[in-house]
């Protein structure tokens, strides 16, 4: 593994100015298949085809870490009859709006969140785990077996390609959870329902968010935490909330979760979805040196408010490679680097995953990434 890339990553995570800007890309399996010209459905189920698609991404685009993220496997969700992850007509796995916890379940959830998930919520998300079905244990066993097998294949592919292409580890190293409010909204009540709940039954929402915190802590922090590891936390709903609701329902448990992760010797890798400029102060107030990838927002303001304390990246929209000239794309990334690089604590990342190859111009994106690799040097 490249000592140089490892050192850059270490310096970045420690808050030191590295030799150059660390580059972490994120392509999906769908994009990788499009690039490699292989069938997506075949790649979902055939490790060799998948590896071929991954390798094509590694060969084409410069990155300092393994550039593909594929953690939603249809072969795991299918035997569960999953409602929370489904395949679209193009073969991509997506998360639809779901309501797995009914409004009348609030009191029970507040009293015993884990028990309610096990007894009521999981069978709604995964109907084939309904205890009334004789085949439920077999469905669980199938899903578990496939998760182990596919997970092993994924890790194997990642290790093999990381060795071949000399990658350092990225920031997503397998540990994952959600902010407690996002967990309640995203997986249990749904976006529409939670919007009504915060207005109609705010006390119950607040109590349910508090009840979700220990679950998220348990999911985020392993029994034997690994110092220096990052826990990936995608942040969903704060930008859609009123400031008072953010302060009441979102921030307290989010803040506590991050502090507990840090107490365990790890840091958070946050993906700030949509525009968090409004809540930049809240991100700056977290323990120092959290890694935060931003989707949208005022780069200058976020650098000023958050960048002095946290390690920030993102903002670069690969879609512009479709709509602008190569020179204009490079101008845009120069602008981003000029704002982000001073003082360090900055990494290069896309503002979101590249989901399919039709949403980028490959040659222009290659030029952008080569520019960053060669010129984003301290």
């Amino acid at each position, binding site marked *: 593994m490249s000592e140089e890339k490892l050192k850059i990553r270490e310096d970045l995570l420690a808050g030191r100015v590295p030799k150059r800007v660390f580059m972490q890309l994120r392509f999906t399996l769908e994009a990788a298949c499009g690039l490699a010209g292989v069938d997506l459905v075949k790649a979902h189920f055939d490790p060799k085809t998948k590896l071929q698609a991954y390798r094509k991404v590694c060969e084409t685009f410069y990155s300092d870490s393994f550039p593909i993220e594929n953690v939603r496997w249809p072969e795991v969700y299918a035997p569960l009859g999953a409602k929370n992850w489904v395949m679209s007509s*193009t073969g991509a796995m*997506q998360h639809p*709006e779901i309501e797995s916890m009914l409004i009348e379940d609030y009191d029970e959830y507040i009293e015993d969140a884990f028990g309610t998930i096990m007894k009521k919520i999981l069978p709604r998300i995964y109907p084939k785990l309904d205890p009334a079905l004789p085949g439920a244990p077999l469905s669980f066993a199938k899903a578990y077996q496939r998760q182990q097998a596919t997970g092993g294949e994924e890790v194997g592919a990642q290790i093999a390609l990381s060795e071949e292409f000399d990658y350092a580890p990225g920031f997503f190293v397998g540990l994952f959870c959600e902010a407690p409010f996002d967990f309640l909204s995203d997986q249990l009540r749904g*976006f529409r329902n939670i*919007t009504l709940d915060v*207005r109609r039954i705010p006390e119950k929402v607040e109590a349910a968010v508090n009840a979700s915190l220990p679950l998220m802590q348990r999911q985020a922090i392993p029994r034997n935490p690994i110092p220096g590891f990052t826990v990936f936390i995608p942040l969903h709903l704060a930008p*859609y*909330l009123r400031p008072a609701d953010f302060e009441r329902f979102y921030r307290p448990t989010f803040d506590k979760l991050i502090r507990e992760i840090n107490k365990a010797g790890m840091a958070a890798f946050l993906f700030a979805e949509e525009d968090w400029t409004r809540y930049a102060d809240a991100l700056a107030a977290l323990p120092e040196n959290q890694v935060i990838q931003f989707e949208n927002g005022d780069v200058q303001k976020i650098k000023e408010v958050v960048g002095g304390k946290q390690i920030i990246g993102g903002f670069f929209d690969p*879609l512009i490679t479709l709509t602008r000239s190569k020179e204009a794309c490079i101008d845009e990334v120069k602008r981003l680097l000029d704002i982000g690089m001073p003082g360090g604590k900055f990494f290069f990342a896309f503002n*979101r995953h590249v989901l399919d190859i039709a949403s980028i111009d490959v040659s222009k994106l290659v030029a952008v990434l080569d520019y960053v690799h060669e010129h984003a040097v301290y």
Partner: protein
Amino acid sequence: MIDTAVLKQKLGDLDEDGVQALLDEFAAGTPSAEETQQVVEACQQGMEIVGENFEAGTYFVGDLMYAAQILTAALEQLKPLMSAGGGQAAKGTVVLGTVAGDIHDIGKNIFKALLEAAGFSVIDIGIDQAPSAFVETAKTNGAEIVALSGVLTLSIASMKETIEALAAAGLRDKVKVMIGGNAVSAETCEFIGADYWSKNAAAAVKQGLTYVS
């Protein structure tokens, strides 16, 4: 008859209980179809206040969703009272859907509620819809507007294909194409050949009204 100015303001203030109390009072008074129409219009004007607050940055997406919920419930309650005299004629027909490859529908549903509040007839064809579904529905219903929704970046390519399909069917000059969602921008709008883009459903409704006036 209730005070429609108060109703309008209560909806604008997102006072769900206040709106409900006024509508209950109104329904209990055996109103005429004409009075019911006035109340519907007050609700529509209340949604305009919501839209203005959203554009001004004092309301957020969650507020729009809540407003849509209050409005949908209000119109459901008022619908039986309108049957005697019929409602106002639709201001125009919109074919609305999430484009192929994308299964997200929250933004689409907010836009739908706001369009209906503004008096449009909306044909919602659902999520993950192929270009042919938009084309056929627009053709069959003589739509003035085709509204394409999508959250994911992959939706941009699908939107482009849909607009190309409208052109191939000879409909491109007959409809205005609006795009909305997380990935849209002025640049993507121009790139795919749409007429209008927005991440702001309230502003998009205003634009839609200019297409049918």
